C-alpha cells in the first residue's frame, strides 16, 4: 500500500446526517479522504455504514451536512449543488461504485465486453475496435479469459461477476471508488483472490476508496484508515492497524474480540 503525498484532500465530509423519518441513518459524520487513501467503514448491520456510503456517492441526499469533492480541474464543489448533468458525468467517469450484488452493478443481458465497453462509450469513445481491445485488456486484468468476452454475465460464477463489475468500474480510470461489501457472499477462496486483485489494482492505480465492510480482515488487508460506526455515529476512527490492535471504545473491542481465530 503506497501512501499519499498530496497535500489536498479529495473528499471533505462535514457533519453529514441522514434521518429516515424519526429513525436515524447516520449522525454528524465528518472526515477528509486523501488521494490514494483507502478508508474502511465497519460496524454491524444497521449501524449506518451503507446510509453514509449512499450519501457520499450522491445516491441518497443527506438531511443535513455538506460533502465537497475536488473536481478534475482542482476546484472543490459541493456535491449536492452540482447540476444533474455534472453529477451524472462524475458518476460515469471519475467515480466507480462496486455493489455487493454484482447484478446491481452490471447489465446482465449484454456481453461481458459490452459491460466494460459501455462505460467507455459513456465518456465519448466511439471506435469499436479500440473499445473492444480496451475491454479485453481489462478483462485480462481482472483475470477473465478472453474467450468469455462475448458471453453475458448470467453465465458467470459469483466471483467472475464481481471481477467483471470491478473492470466495468475501473475502465474509465476513476479517482474515487465506493465499495459496498465487495467480497460479501463469496466463497473464502474466491474472496482471497478478489481481495488480492483489489489490493493490487488500488495500489497500482493510486485509487481513493471508501469501502463498507463488516469483515475486519478485509478492512485490515485493504484499508489505510478505518471508521467504526454504531447507531449512526462514528465512535472510533484512526489508522487501521491501530484501531484493530488497540481498540479503545467498548464496541470496537467487542468487534475485534468477536473475530474467530483460524
Amino acid at each position, binding site marked *: 500500500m503506497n501512501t*499519499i*503525498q498530496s497535500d489536498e484532500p479529495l473528499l471533505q465530509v462535514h457533519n453529514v446526517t441522514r434521518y429516515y423519518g424519526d429513525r436515524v441513518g447516520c449522525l454528524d459524520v465528518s472526515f477528509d479522504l486523501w488521494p490514494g487513501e483507502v478508508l474502511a467503514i465497519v460496524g454491524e448491520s444497521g449501524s449506518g455504514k451503507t446510509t453514509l456510503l449512499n450519501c457520499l456517492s450522491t445516491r441518497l441526499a443527506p438531511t443535513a451536512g455538506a460533502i465537497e469533492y475536488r473536481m478534475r480541474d482542482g476546484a472543490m464543489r459541493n456535491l449536492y449543488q452540482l447540476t444533474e448533468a455534472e453529477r451524472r458525468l462524475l458518476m460515469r467517469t471519475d467515480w466507480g461504485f462496486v455493489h455487493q450484488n454484482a447484478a446491481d452493478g452490471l447489465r446482465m443481458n449484454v456481453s461481458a465486453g459490452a459491460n466494460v465497453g459501455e462505460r467507455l462509450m459513456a465518456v465519448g469513445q466511439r471506435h469499436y475496435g479500440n473499445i473492444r481491445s480496451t475491454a479485453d485488456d481489462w478483462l485480462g486484468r481482472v483475470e477473465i479469459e478472453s474467450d468469455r468476452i462475448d458471453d453475458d454475465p448470467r453465465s458467470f460464477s459469483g466471483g467472475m461477476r464481481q471481477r467483471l463489475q470491478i473492470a466495468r468500474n475501473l475502465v474509465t480510470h476513476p479517482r474515487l471508488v465506493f465499495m459496498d461489501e465487495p467480497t460479501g457472499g463469496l466463497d473464502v477462496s474466491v474472496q482471497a483472490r478478489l*481481495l*488480492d486483485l483489489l489490493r493490487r489494482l488500488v495500489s497500482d492505480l493510486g485509487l481513493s476508496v471508501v469501502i463498507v465492510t463488516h469483515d475486519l480482515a478485509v478492512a485490515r488487508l485493504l484499508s489505510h*484508515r478505518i471508521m467504526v460506526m454504531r447507531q449512526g455515529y462514528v465512535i472510533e476512527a*484512526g489508522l487501521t492497524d491501530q484501531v484493530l*490492535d488497540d481498540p479503545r471504545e*467498548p464496541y470496537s*473491542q467487542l468487534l475485534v474480540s468477536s473475530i474467530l481465530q483460524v
Partner: protein
Amino acid sequence: MPVRLYLNNVGKSFTMHLQGGTIIPVVDKVEFSVNTGECVVLGGPSGAGKSSILKMIYGNYRCDQGQILVTIDDEIINVADAEPRKVLQLREDTIGYVSQFLRTIPRVSAEDVVAEPLIAQGESEDNAVKKARSLLARLNVPERLWTLPPATFSGGEQQRVNIARGFIAHYPILLLDEPTASLDAANRAVVVRLVQEKKEQGVAMVGILHDQDVREEIADRIIDVTAFAADAAA
C-alpha cells in the same frame, strides 16, 4: 552522534471494557533516546511492556501520555499525535519494523513480499527483486521457495522472509521485535551482520532480543524496562 528518536514521559495502559472496565497499566514515564548508528536493546521479563513500547514508536499502539519524537533532517515529528497519513508516510520512508510473525498476503511470492518496501520507496521493480533475492540467499532461504507465497513455509523460513523484508529498505529508524527468536546459529549470525551494516549506515535501532549471544554482539546499551513499570510509579 545526533539523537534520532526520543521518548519523553511516555505512558500507556489498556482499558478492557469487556472485562468490566479493568485498567491494565503497561508503562509509565518512559524516557530514553537513541542516536544515529546506535542499537538500544529493551530488557526485562515478558509482560514488562517492551513490545508495547516498540508498537507505540511504530504508531501501532496509541500512546496515552508523553511524546515520541522522531528527528529527520530539520523536522521533528511527534508520532504520539501525528495524523494517520503522517504515520503511514513515516512507515514508508523513516521507521521500519521487523516483527516476529509474517502477516502473509495471499498469492504474493516471497521475493515480492521482500521487495515491496523498497519499491514503495521508489526503487525500480527489477532492482528491488534483485536485492530481495540476494537477501533471501544470505538468509539461507532455499531458492526454490523464492517465487512461492510464504503462507505454507515453515516458521523459521517465514521469519527469515520477514527479516529480509525488514532489512531491504533504508529506514533511519529500525525496530526489531525478537527477529532471531526461532533461528539457528548460522542465521542468527547473518542477522548480527545485517544489524552491524545498518549501524554503519547510521540507522538508529531499538530491539527486543532474548538471545543472550545476539544481544551481546549488537547492543550498545540495554535499557531495563522494569524501571518504567506503571504500578511502581503510583
